[in-house]
Structures are given as structure tokens and as C-alpha cells.
């Protein structure tokens, strides 16, 4: 049996204003799996992802990454093992040059200069952005920024990649190019999205999250064909809308 990459046991979370965010989440993700987390806006997808590298920390220590509980001592290592990529690349890129952005993580890890340069260069090559080292991230296209954001996390050599809405605001060409890029990566991947087309193309397993709870978990080919299930959680158009669409 494959090792567990992520193990979550009964994780709950309440927002500071008192609204419930996550309720009793239990899930194991194996090494090398590629898992889609889908659900409507406000289902708690981002909140769940933020627990995976200790941005949000549950007091009960019920999130384990590669066998280690997330806690004060483990957190540094866990942030190296879990690369988290945010939806809006502008939230992530604020260094004067692409190189500085990609080198930021390795520098935080305290790696020696040579190694930082080696890792940053390699990460940029991975995402097909070598030659962009001296460019200003802010002036790039959305698609390019998204790639830099991935490189900025790959430079940490993470074992697990956690990506929030990778394809939002990308045009079709950029989107499919990006999907190709993600498919080429072989580490454990967790992808939160409501772009089912992408999830279909990238994930072998799908978890549906709604109102902070896991409402379905299974192989992609079973979940994504269950139209009623998808409809019930806002992931497929209601019958009426779908029909009038066909009639049009």
C-alpha cells in the first residue's frame, strides 16, 4: 500500500466571526495521488487548503502531512514539503524580478547561494519560463504570472502541490497549456476548482465539498458523471437552465 501524504481526521474550523468554515473533515490522500477538490463558491475549499501547510492550524493536531502532525516544531518542514499556490498570482508575486520571486522560498529555507540559483533556474525551466529571470512579474500576462507562481513553489522541491483555482481567468490556450504543465508534475497534487473540465483532465480522484463538509469522495470517472450529485451541489446547471441552453 502507498504511504499517506495527507491525513486529516475530524477537522473543523470556524471563522473569527462565528460562521462555520469546515465541519468534521476526514480524508486521507496517498502519495502520488492527484485529487480534485470541487464545490461551489463559499464551500470552504480555500479554507481547507490553508490547513494543508499550516496557514490555519487546528488546535487538535488533526492534520498530518507525510506522517508528521502540523504543530510548532514541524511547521517549517511542512511548509517546505507542501507547496501552496494561490488563485490570484498577484497575491503571490511581489518581488522586483521573476528571479527574486522564484528564489524567495529557497532563501527563506536558508539554502546556500549556489543552491538557491540552481533551484530557481531549474524551476523556471520546468514551467517553461527560462529567460524571464530579469522580467518584472507585474508586467507579465496572467498566464505567465501563473507559471511563475508555480515555479516559485517548485523551487522548494515540495512533495505535495496544493493549487487553488489554477485555471481561473486564463484564456483557453493558456488554460490547456497550464493543464499540460501540471500533468507533467509527478508529486502528490491537490487541486481546488470548479472547472470540472480541468479536474477531469488532471485528477484521478474527486472530493466534493459543500457547506464545509465532504459530501462525496471517489474516482473521477464515477463522480463527474453523476449529474444529480453535481447539481445538488451547484456544480452543474439546474435542469431548467441546461435545457433552455439546449433549446437556444
Amino acid at each position, binding site marked *: 500500500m502507498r504511504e499517506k501524504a495527507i491525513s486529516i481526521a475530524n477537522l473543523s474550523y470556524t471563522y473569527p466571526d462565528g460562521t462555520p468554515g469546515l465541519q468534521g473533515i476526514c480524508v486521507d490522500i496517498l502519495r502520488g495521488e492527484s485529487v480534485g477538490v470541487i464545490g461551489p463558491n463559499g464551500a470552504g475549499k480555500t479554507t481547507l487548503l490553508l490547513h494543508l501547510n499550516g496557514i490555519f492550524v487546528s488546535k487538535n493536531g488533526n492534520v498530518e502531512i507525510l506522517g508528521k502532525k502540523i504543530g510548532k516544531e514541524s511547521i*517549517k518542514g511542512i511548509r517546505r514539503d507542501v507547496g501552496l499556490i494561490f488563485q490570484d498570482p*498577484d497575491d*503571490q508575486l*511581489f518581488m522586483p524580478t521573476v528571479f527574486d520571486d522564484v528564489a524567495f522560498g529557497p532563501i*527563506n529555507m536558508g539554502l546556500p547561494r549556489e543552491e538557491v540559483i540552481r533551484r530557481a533556474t531549474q524551476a523556471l525551466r520546468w514551467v517553461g519560463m527560462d529567460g524571464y529571470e530579469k522580467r518584472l512579474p507585474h508586467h507579465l500576462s496572467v498566464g505567465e504570472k501563473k507559471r511563475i507562481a508555480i515555479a516559485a513553489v517548485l523551487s522548494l522541491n515540495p512533495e505535495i502541490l496544493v493549487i487553488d483555482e489554477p485555471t481561473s481567468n486564463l484564456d483557453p490556450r493558456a488554460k490547456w497549456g497550464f493543464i499540460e504543465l501540471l500533468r507533467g508534475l509527478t508529486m502528490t497534487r491537490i487541486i481546488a476548482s470548479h472547472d470540472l473540465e480541468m479536474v477531469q483532465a488532471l485528477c484521478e480522484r474527486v472530493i466534493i465539498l459543500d457547506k464545509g463538509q465532504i459530501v462525496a469522495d471517489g474516482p473521477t470517472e464515477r463522480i463527474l458523471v453523476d449529474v444529480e450529485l453535481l447539481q445538488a451541489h451547484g456544480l452543474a446547471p439546474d435542469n431548467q437552465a441546461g435545457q433552455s441552453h439546449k433549446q437556444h
Partner: protein
Amino acid sequence: MEYPQIDRYAGLASPIHRWDPRAKLVAILGLIFSVVLITDLKMAMVGLAVAILLVLVSRIPFRFVLGHLAGVSFFILPLSVIILFSYHQGDEIARFAFLTVTSGGLEHASLIAVRAFAAVILIFPMISTVRFDVTMKALERLRVPVRLVRMIMFTYRYIFVLIEEVQRMLRALTSRGFTGGMNIRTLITTGKLIGMLFVRTLERAERVYRAMLSRGYEGNLQTLVEFKMRKTDLLKAAVLIAIAVALNVL
């Protein structure tokens, strides 16, 4: 980083909640200015009692009020302690090693602290009993210069949007292993982060301005508001103004 939630309890029901916001603003502001003018410790205590009484009447949980007093305490408490030990007048009442406390020093330090807390506690019945957007409209109706009120209004609106933006930026930083410490790198990184926030905000400001133009903005900003002043509103105001005057005259 927390959202402003000063008007979290604006939905409660109390005589203060039901009070016309304009009358409420004027009357309680009058009381605040009266409190800071008090020079007699006993009257200042009365002022503090009035402030606490108003909070009780408004049904705003006192826990909530206490939670908001950290900023003032952080300023006032050290200041009072310094005055306590440095201002010497009247009889010596205590001595710690080389520090002495006099009755005059104690009274002056207490006066400053009591005035400060009375004034700040009065903000809650004034601001927390009505939604902040209504407070802003009330200010406008009270003839506070409209450009100033509009600035407050837009700033308030975008505080919420930008807090989220900064939160996301800080999370992205943390998740790449950045741990702020007392060092120059932390400061430089913070500078870049705020720089990026500023650049993005300017771009947003341009987009907002375009959206305003699209909807016919020509420099003039109005809202429709309905305030109704009843006799009881004026009566409540009259009572508080009378107290405000009494605090300084008696």
C-alpha cells in the same frame, strides 16, 4: 488582521439604538467634549459612570467594549504611571525605593485616566448602536463637509476589500517559509509587500473611477437617506446635553 466590527451590535434593540443618529451623534459628541474638559476628579468619575450607564442601556456587551479598550490602555496606563511618579504636589502618600507618590500626583494621574476612559467608552453608545454607513450619512446631514464624508465613505468601503487582499499576500508569504523576525530582511520584504499593495490599489482606483464615470459620475456624490426626528429623539438629546453642561458647571 481583523475587519472593523464596531457596528457588530447595531442590530440590537434599545432606546439608544432607536435614537435618531443625528441627535445621538450631536448629544454624545457634546458629552465627550464635556468629559475631556472636566478638571475635578469627582466630576470625572460621574462622567465615567454616565458613560458606563449608557453602554448598559444600549445592551452592547461590556466584553465587547473592553476588547476595544486595548489601544487606549496602551497609551494611557504608562502615561498615568509616569505622571504618578513624576508630578509632586501635596502630601507624600507612598514611597518605593527612590520613587515617591504624592496626593496631588495621584489625583492628577487618576483624572487623566478617568477622563480618557470615560471619553472612549462614550464612543460605543454613539457608534456601535447604528450601522457605520448610517453614521456616515448622519454626519453628512449634520453638515460635516461633504467631501470629507465621501472620503471617509470610500475609504471605509475599500478597507474591507484591501484587508482581504493583504491577508492573501501575507499568507502567500508565510506559505513559502517566510517568518518575520526582527531583521532588515523582514522590513524590506514588508516594504515590497506594501509597495505592491499600493501599485495594485492605484490600478484598482483607476478601475473604480471608470465604473463611476460609466454610471454618470460628474463629481457629485449623493445618497438618499431618510431620517426622522421625533420628539423623544430631541428629549434624549436634551437630557444628555444637560448632563454635559452640568459636568463642567457644577
